[in-house]
């Protein structure tokens, strides 16, 4: 940078300063407008769906002319599928991250794993659905064509790289001094991992997991060709199941005003769930020492 001093601040420079700062402020407000509009419309149109009788307690009827019913099967279906995806991807994801930070470190194998996981985060989510389609759905693996558990597998494939990477970051933040102290006291390696590393990283791991779950709940593309849809309520993981994103996606192209209202109501429900997960994750992160 030049060492010569700048001249006295002229009126022109003051004006430029004010104008540019005003523009930046304006741009920030512009950035917030879509969010405000989306929330406004979600509430405005979604609440009228929420207040319909039976919106949360009945299933979609699928009847063309009569009442469209509610979205109960979609809510429970989403929860069930994402729960299964969570059970699959979070332990495996944290396990792989543990390997990378505790054992693999900078070795060639660990770096290969890291590289491929990185690459996976760039894959469009629909490709996971297609992969599960050709591997599991087409061959009727498990005795069913489209099935809820296959959709859960697709979603867990999507969540896995996110969990691995965010967990790795958090695990790396655990101070080595803690590990070394435990080892010096005679603890075995596995005890160090379970009693020192994981508890310390706990809040961060939880944050990363919650964000991954929030992501999984909102996904539509992986479900399109793996779970398809159903109207009625089913808990069977080996059957087609209704889900919130799929229901919204289908109802968007319906000309029927009643179904469009249902779509808004479902969208509001979905956004509320996702926002709660996000805010809880942030809250945990902000309280943790290692945020």
């Amino acid at each position, binding site marked *: 940078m030049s060492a010569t001093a700048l001249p006295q601040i002229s009126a022109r420079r003051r004006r430029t300063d004010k104008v540019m700062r005003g523009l930046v402020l304006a741009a920030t407000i512009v950035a917030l407008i879509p969010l405000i509009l989306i929330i406004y419309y979600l509430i405005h149109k979604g609440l009228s769906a929420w207040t319909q009788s039976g919106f949360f307690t009945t299933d979609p009827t699928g009847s063309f002319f009569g009442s469209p019913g509610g979205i109960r099967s979609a809510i429970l279906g989403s929860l069930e599928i994402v729960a299964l995806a969570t059970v699959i991807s979070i332990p495996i994801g944290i396990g792989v991250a543990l390997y990378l930070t505790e054992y693999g470190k900078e070795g060639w194998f660990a770096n290969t794993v890291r590289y491929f996981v990185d690459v996976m985060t760039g894959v469009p989510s629909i490709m996971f659905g297609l992969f599960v389609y050709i591997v599991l759905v087409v061959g009727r693996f*498990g005795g069913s*064509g489209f099935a809820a558990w296959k959709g859960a597998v697709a979603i867990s494939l999507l969540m896995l790289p996110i969990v691995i990477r965010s967990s790795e970051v958090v695990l790396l933040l655990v101070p080595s001094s803690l590990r070394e102290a435990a080892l010096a006291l005679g603890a075995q390696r596995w005890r160090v991992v379970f009693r020192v590393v994981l508890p310390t990283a706990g809040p961060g791991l939880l944050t990363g997991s919650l964000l991954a779950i929030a992501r999984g709940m909102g996904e539509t593309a992986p479900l399109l060709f793996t779970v398809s849809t159903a109207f*009625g309520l089913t*808990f069977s993981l*080996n059957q087609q199941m209704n889900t919130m994103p799929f229901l919204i996606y289908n109802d968007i192209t319906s000309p029927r005003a009643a179904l469009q209202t249902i779509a808004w109501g479902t969208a509001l429900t979905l956004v509320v769930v996702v926002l709660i997960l996000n805010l809880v994750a942030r809250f945990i992160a902000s309280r943790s020492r290692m945020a």
Partner: protein
Amino acid sequence: MKPRPIALIATALVSALVVAACGSSNSSTSSAGGGAASSSSTSSGGSSSSSGSGTINGAGSTLAAPIYQQWGSTLKGQGLTVNFNPVGSGAGQTQLASATVDFAGSDPSLKPSDKSKMKGPVLQFPVAAGAITVSYNLSGVKSGLKLDGPTVAKIFQGTIKTWNDPAIKTLNPGMSLPSTNITVVHRSDSSGTTQGFTTWLSDVDPAWKSSVGEGKDVQWPTGTGGKGNSGVAAVVKQTAGAIGYVEQAYALENGFTYAAIKNSAGSYVLPTIPNTSAAFLGIKVPPDLGISTINSSNPGAYPIVSQTFLDAYKDPCKDGGTNSGTAAALKKFLTYAFGAGQQTLGAGSNQLPYAPVPSALADKDNTQLATMVCNGSPIS
């Protein structure tokens, strides 16, 4: 509070194994056809196998989707769950060919090339016919618009661009037509409705036949695409001056106005239910029941009537990978389809706006259904 990862991994593996085990126990179909031995197709408190209750999955025609969705709603009370995914006739056939669904809804009959893609012999059952309306969104023109084949063809080719074009005016003397641009709306997905519409256009307009032709998918010279009958209806509803081809149920649901179309006898006919049913009279019924109701020669018939089929494997257990319980459920659904279900179709205020199949055809459906088997043995 913090679960040990190893415990979680173990739980995950165990649950995955349990799920897979539950699933694979349903895939064994080799046991005796009567099916007391095989577990039910739904693992959630499943009802017993051979009583024809359970869950069946179908996909396909959006033209007929209102029917199957309504029937599904009714049959749920009888213990039969029918899931139908309206993805278009083309996708329905593809999914049946991969055996990812138990039945397909298809408007066009199966061509030999379609049959060869299937895993085994497929039965097709005509269950209804629907009128394909030429609906439009034009304020000020609420009824009485007449169109003939060549004019419709030119509109959909983009040669006629505005509503007050001389060709349209000639057919509608005395009607005041605005100068609004015509926005053509067609299907973006592989569609039996498109097949029906373009088959009619090819029949009545040689220029269309040589330039665009017919098919479930065609290369549209102009216009906007919508997915499914409902997608087209949605675009027509939102766009002033739009014209599109939608099945009657969708047109009625949205309060569309549609044109009276010139039929093969030269009269301008509206798609009422009697005019739709008239398309069934006098058609040839081939042995595989692959009928066509397009451009019927019956003088009272609406010209753009599309039949619609339910397609299923002749042996769903062997070729479709289902168990005997699902096969029995499928048979129950099909029996309803050309039995009590036909009462739900018609012109009455509680009925769906489709033409039911004539009773002679329904009899043929039943005869064909009796040939359906599960691993070689008849289904109870």
